[in-house]
């Protein structure tokens, strides 16, 4: 038994749990079956699987309970370039998956903003990437997965199954934040790529209106699209942005020197932020400077630039522990989605953040395509916006104000990022929450699977 404090990537509300390493599906089943359920009065505090801990809030914490460290359950069982199917354990990271797939001309179908997530975590949060508007979210590409249930039994959940119970459990598990059971193994349908490079168009937008207009028109020409915007500037420069959109490069688009090894890939050098960052490194002045510099450093307009993977997908993965920059109280990442037509809400949110005095540097705007049928899956068709804010006095008040605007527009927050919403608000954001709860109660009546997030939001 190893008692450890666990926090999310935002380093905000740690809690202590009994962390146990697992190395096989049998291990997981044993741990789960031998456990006393959370809802039994005076008994245990439940079980939760944790991957690489990249969710920002309390999703991968279970204070006082058991947390299964899934990163040791990490075998790649089979890769079939013919069918494009890869069969892996849930603890395999997307970084590792890229390493395995790319030399065979295959590509992970959905990549979030970091490669440091496990396959299990990607399913639990139903993560999305720059290609959501074309390819949907991670769960859409999982053809089959193995789930350890509360009684220790193992179920296989297949995409497109005709068994209604299996289908309901699969829907609840995708985006279900680990609360239906423990995913131990999954088969993922990959994409085929000819090279490890991207062909990227970069352009700037002078303000938020221009940004929204660009993203609303040209979007279907690019499978990958995202915009960074300035969340500090006010007035005419409010919401100025850098839009990067691209597609996988074909072999003949590479520089001649690279064509011999089109799939070559180096993850890049890792730098680390030291453990002792004083509070206040990220303040109004430094954030304003960062936002302005980032905007000005981007080309006004550049077409068909060939970029490597890390530059395009995961520039932050080159710096480990960058979350330490936010100081001892940590940070909150606030990510919302509102339907198309609610552009005014996007404008108001950007204006409110800029006017609040709270500062954000990693600000992302993207247009989502239609969502899937999972009740707790975050993406729905519309505008998604993310800002990350160091915790300071008054932040709760600002974000509650934003919550109201998101609710009024029929939007929602992303559970993998949330660390402070309340249960009443969340219930209104996810109208199918009752369906999720019903499925969860059916497969886990005593509440064996639980997390700090589930307790806070009464999932």
């Amino acid at each position: 038994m190893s008692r450890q404090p666990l926090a999310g990537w935002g380093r905000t509300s740690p809690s202590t749990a009994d962390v146990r390493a697992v190395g096989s599906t049998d291990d997981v089943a044993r741990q789960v079956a031998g456990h006393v359920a959370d809802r039994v009065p005076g008994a245990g505090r439940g079980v939760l699987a944790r991957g690489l801990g990249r969710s920002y809030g309390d999703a991968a914490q279970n204070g006082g309970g058991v947390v299964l460290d899934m990163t040791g359950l990490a075998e790649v069982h089979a890769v079939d370039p013919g069918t494009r199917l890869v069969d892996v354990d849930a603890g395999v990271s997307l970084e590792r998956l890229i390493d395995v797939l790319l030399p065979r001309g295959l590509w992970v179908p959905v990549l979030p903003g970091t490669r440091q997530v496990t396959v299990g975590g990607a399913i639990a949060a139903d993560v999305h990437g720059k290609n959501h508007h074309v390819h949907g979210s991670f769960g859409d590409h999982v053809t089959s997965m193995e789930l350890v249930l509360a009684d220790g039994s193992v179920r296989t959940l297949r995409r497109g199954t005709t068994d209604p119970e299996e289908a309901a459990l699969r829907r609840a598990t995708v985006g279900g934040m680990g609360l239906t059971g423990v995913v131990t193994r999954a088969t993922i349908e990959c994409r085929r790529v000819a090279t490890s490079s991207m062909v990227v168009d970069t352009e700037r937008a002078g303000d938020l209106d221009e940004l929204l207009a660009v993203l609303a028109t040209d979007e279907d020409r690019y499978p990958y699209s995202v915009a960074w915007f300035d969340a500090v500037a006010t007035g005419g420069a409010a919401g100025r942005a850098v839009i990067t959109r691209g597609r996988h490069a074909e072999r003949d688009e590479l520089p001649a020197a690279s064509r011999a090894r089109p799939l070559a890939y180096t993850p890049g050098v890792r730098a680390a932020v030291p453990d002792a960052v004083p509070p206040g490194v990220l303040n109004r002045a430094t954030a304003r400077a960062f936002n302005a510099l980032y905007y000005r450093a981007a080309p006004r307009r550049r077409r068909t630039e060939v970029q490597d993977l890390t530059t395009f997908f995961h520039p932050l993965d080159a710096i480990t522990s960058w979350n330490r920059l936010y100081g001892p109280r940590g940070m909150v990442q606030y990510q919302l989605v509102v339907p198309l037509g609610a552009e005014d809400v996007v404008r108001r949110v950007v204006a409110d953040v800029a006017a609040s005095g709270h500062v954000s540097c990693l600000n992302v705007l993207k247009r989502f395509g239609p969502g899937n049928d999972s009740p707790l899956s975050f993406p729905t068709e519309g505008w998604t916006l993310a800002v990350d804010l160091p915790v300071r006095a008054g932040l709760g008040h600002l974000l509650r104000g934003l919550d109201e605007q998101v609710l009024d527009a029929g939007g929602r927050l992303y559970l993998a990022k949330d660390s402070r919403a309340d249960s009443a608000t969340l219930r209104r954001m996810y109208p199918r929450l009752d369906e999720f709860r019903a499925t969860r109660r059916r497969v886990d009546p005593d509440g064996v699977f639980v997390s700090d997030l589930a307790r806070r939001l009464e999932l």
Partner: protein
Amino acid sequence: MTDAVGDPRSLLLMGGTSEIALAIAERYARRVPGLHVTLAARPSQRRAEAAGLLSSLGCTVAELDLDAEAPETHAAVVEAATADRDVDVAVVAYGLLGDPEEAWTDVDAGVRLARVNYVGPVATGIALADRVRRQGHGTVVALSSVAGERPRRSNFVYGSTKAGFDAFYTGLGEALREHGGRVVVVRPGFVHSRMTAGLDPAPLAVRPEDVAQAVVAAVDGSAEQVWVPAAMRPVMSVLRHVPRRVFRRLPL
């Protein structure tokens, strides 16, 4: 659990009619919509009024009976308060000032002060610690006093109980660290309140609201000791080292 922006979802006041405890609750109530507050105190009109005020601020309020002089009952009170929810922030606020001369000349008076100010808080602290260990998180706010830092002739029995209280909760904070818990020991100077009504205020006197503000700021941050006002810290640091011959002549 206290969330990322420092907002607790549940607050437990052990000594729920203490003016300082209520000032803390009111401060959180204005900040956290739907906060759950448990007032553990002797049943009284004051408790009912406090519950009414907090309800009007949007809190859901539960009232529990607490007898500070019956330490053996405290575990059951904490158990009842946490049956349906984790405790995010607990405030140990009950205490007696007593008559300082009676307290060292009358056995019953002295022992009663020791029971309410020290033995009771030990029982409460152990019960809270058990809950914190089981839930893996939680903050205990312990209202100590500068009187415990260097007891003086004028109220040394009270001072001795607070010295014990302070030492117990300081140590409890260390013990709970590995369990995800935190204890904030609060050392106010003279606080204008019912407890001190009629006494001459000492220098650096504060109001319950000042203590509440300092407590909430400490819980938001990472402090484990807080003096109110902050200037009390260097003052006490000096006073602790003043030779006794000089100390006894100081007009304190």
